């Protein structure tokens, strides 16, 4: 491995300076992918296509022409992001054979910036899960300890970046699906403000909560990547018109004079001692470096998980209804009539967790239950959102652990759904409130497993998260 240890920012400079070609990088990525194939991070790879594009980009660069900010950089997309001509399976048997007929806006933006999509990353089926064990194509393994889960649902996206198969990836986050695997694998991942990145072309799980975000090895890389994919999109009515600031301009300003809020509800006795001590150290570092730590309250945050399972499942049940075996995807054989076709295709195509959420979602929307569940959940959502806004009025951002424990063992929680759902208690409230949050490594436990801290910001203030995270990262760089 010659170049894959470099960060995204560094490799861009090396490409620019002619120290390395895109073709060399792509080749190295595929060597590495083959070496680390047992991690099962990727569902589809595109070596031939990637090499051809790399060659073309090298030639364009050779002529002195513009190749874009990411010109020639190998990237990986989560397998729920459409990219014309690639398989987009959502790690579901149902879409095993589905080839994207179009490209998602976020993928198009990467493409237009010169990135080379080399693979699609494994994930929990339809982004439902916290361990990546719900993939129809087998679980992803944690690259730090391959007996452990990488987190989910963007487990493949986190794994591929940590395992140095590429320089950055895109994931999606509905209740923690970028931050939790980032934390478990020891990479930087951001769930931007709802509406910051277009959802067009990203297979929907829960439309009102889903966001696309980059996963990278450094905070600076992440800021750069987000600045490329963020922005209003005429194809997504829920994308925001708010201007995208330069995330790099204030990134080195440090934390002196900033106020960081510490929500008491996120520092419970449920934290594992290693997580607790890592967070305590991080908070102490911020204090020492001139930030003021202010206690804040999010009194209703313990209801967020219930609200999340009502809203996200309701939307998912409706969003996944289009997978009926009529138009695309896998159609069951030997059906008697159209109802039987639906029934058999969906029964055979969907995994257990997906079915569980569809049933839950249809239940909370059904006549007689709508008011008690869906409508009430939407009301509580407003309360939670308001609490976040109030807390964030008192400070520049909030700090919390990303997860209560480091990565758990493969299979450990596979049969305990509630324990699995509880993995997301610190990440889910952020999606409910619609605010941005970033997870960055803040230490390791006694077994060397990564621990992540979560920084939560005001609506559209991702720049603050990058600034606060970058200060910590620079001070704690251990080699790379």
């Amino acid at each position, binding site marked *: 491995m010659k170049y894959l240890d470099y960060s995204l920012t560094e490799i861009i400079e090396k490409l620019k300076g002619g120290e390395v070609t895109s073709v060399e990088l792509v080749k190295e990525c595929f060597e590495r992918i083959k070496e680390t194939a047992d991690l099962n991070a990727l569902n589809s790879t595109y070596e031939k296509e990637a090499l051809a594009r790399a060659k073309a980009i090298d030639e364009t660069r050779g002529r002195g022409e513009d190749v874009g900010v990411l010109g020639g950089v190998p990237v990986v997309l989560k397998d729920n992001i459409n990219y014309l001509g690639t398989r987009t399976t959502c790690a579901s048997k149902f879409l095993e054979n589905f080839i994207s007929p179009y490209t998602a806006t976020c993928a198009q933006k990467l493409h237009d910036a010169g990135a080379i999509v080399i693979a699609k990353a494994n994930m929990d089926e339809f982004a439902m899960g916290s361990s990546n064990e719900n993939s129809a194509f087998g679980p992803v393994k944690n690259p730090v300890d391959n007996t452990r889960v990488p987190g989910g649902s963007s487990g493949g996206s986190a794994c591929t970046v940590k395992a140095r198969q590429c320089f950055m990836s895109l994931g999606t986050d509905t209740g923690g699906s970028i931050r939790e695997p980032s934390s478990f694998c020891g990479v930087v991942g951001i769930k931007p403000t709802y509406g910051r990145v277009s959802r067009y072309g990203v297979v929907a799980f*829960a439309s009102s909560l889903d966001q696309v975000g980059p996963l990278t090895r450094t905070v600076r890389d992440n800021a750069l990547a987000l600045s490329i994919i963020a922005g209003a999109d005429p194809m997504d009515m829920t994308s925001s018109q708010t201007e995208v600031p330069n995330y790099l301009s204030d990134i080195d300003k440090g934390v002196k004079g900033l106020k960081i809020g510490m929500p008491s509800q996120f520092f419970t006795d449920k934290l594992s001692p290693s997580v607790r001590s890592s967070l305590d150290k991080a908070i102490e570092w911020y204090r020492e470096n001139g930030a003021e730590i202010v206690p804040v309250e999010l009194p209703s945050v313990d209801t967020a998980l219930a609200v999340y399972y009502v809203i996200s499942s309701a939307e998912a049940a409706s969003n996944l209804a289009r997978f009926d075996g*009529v138009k695309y995807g896998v159609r069951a054989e030997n059906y008697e009539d159209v109802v039987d076709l639906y029934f058999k295709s969906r029964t055979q195509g969907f995994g257990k967790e997906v079915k569980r959420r569809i049933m839950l979602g249809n239940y909370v*929307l059904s006549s007689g239950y709508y008011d008690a569940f869906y409508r009430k959940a939407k009301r509580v959502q407003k309360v939670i959102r308001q609490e976040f806004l109030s807390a964030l009025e008192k400070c520049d951002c909030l700090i919390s652990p990303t997860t209560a424990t480091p990565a758990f063992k493969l299979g450990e929680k596979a049969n305990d759904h509630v324990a699995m759902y509880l993995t997301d208690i610190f990440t889910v409230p952020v999606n409910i409130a619609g605010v941005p949050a970033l997870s960055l490594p803040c230490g390791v436990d006694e077994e060397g497993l990564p621990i992540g801290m979560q920084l939560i910001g005001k609506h559209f203030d991702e720049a603050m998260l990058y600034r606060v995270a970058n200060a910590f990262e620079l001070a704690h760089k251990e080699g790379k």
Partner: protein
Amino acid sequence: MSWNTVIGLEVHSELNTKTKCFCGCKNEFGDKPNTNCCPVCTAMPGSLPVLNRDAVERAILMGLAVGCRINNYSVFERKNYFYPDLCKAYQISQLEYPLCVGGGLEIELEDGTKKFIRLDRIHLEEDAGKLIHSRNGTMIDYNRGGVPLIEIVSKPDMNSAEEAVAYLQKLRSTLLYVGVSDCKMQEGSIRFDVNISVNRDGEPLGTRTELKNLNSFRAVLRAIKYESARQIEELEAGRKVIQETRRWDDAKGKTYSMRTKEDSQDYRYFPDPDLIPLDVTEEYIESIRKKLPKLAPERKAEYQKMGLTEQDATLITSERAYADFFEAVLKYFNEPKFVCNWITAEVFKKLNALEEDDRKISVTPQDLAKMLELYKNGEINQAGARKIFDALWEGETDPVRLVETLGLKQLNDTGALKAVLEKIIADNPKAVAELKAGNEKTMAFFVGQAMRATQGKANPKLVNDLVRELIK
């Protein structure tokens, strides 16, 4: 005690926007199947709807035309159900917060009585695709999928099949006036569902049934008559009316049960998270109100001021196409009464011979104006005018040339006509005597004879005058 019939109508009307309701695909009937499609209207995974503002504007325009209140806050919801023509497995529609509420239409029955039919709401939604059943199985055409529709829901204010049809005609006419739909029943751009129940005087409303598959006004008329009689028969026989959806079989003239309430679907409506709630400001509503075209009552009053009778003004404003045509002809030949008479007599005769959807005026206003001018000035007579009109309707143009080629120039030559008439008078002494005795009907005989002798070209008025002069 006698029976009452209570009828409410749901009318679906496709809006004639350029593009579909939630994507940029063409909104066009009759194109090759699955050519006006994109990832959005074929529900490709990850695609998202983007609201077509033009569809919103047209829905509001119709709302304003029928006196609706326009909601400032309006929400699109998902109506979830599985059907192969519905590719997302949900229809984007409106439930709790429709665009328009209230309003209504005044209908006039044959006997001249007027009645106000209240509307419940008008909401915007998308159409589904179309299933095509063939010998090789069922195929789907998604061209229609995502076409904007408005659903116009009336209150149960109608009490007979005739009232229901009068309402539908008025509604269709209004849609055409406002210009938001082409209302072609055969193309399905306007469709009707009927809710109907019966009850005895003084008793509460009965259980209703819903009738589907009504493709013409005639079908609505027959289906309501059949269904109301069926319900009365059930109740008189001591049975119950079941709440259900019934399908009208036009060939058999009967309704059949499709599904009962028990197996009706739970649509699990909820606000579509892909579409943000609509903020319809008063300024926006006013800007749309300014685009509202002149509707029938306003035009009727104008035409009466031009000298048309109320009856004629009503007739000529019964459809926007007629009123527009009338005004267009007047631009070239400003004789309102004369023009109106020809349209309501001759044009309507041609139109009434056609199916409802095909009623298109196939002469240009210029040509008709020219023809009427020739007629009015006496250069052709009525028979000649009709011949030219027939030719124009068949696709000919230029009435002046047609007068020549068809040899229709009216014979106004007193000398020549005198010669013809002198012979007729000499040959028919009996008729001359009768006319002299005061039998005015005999004059028609002379005119007829003169026409025959001149191949229909004689000026009848001149013939009249000359006969009187010659037998004096």
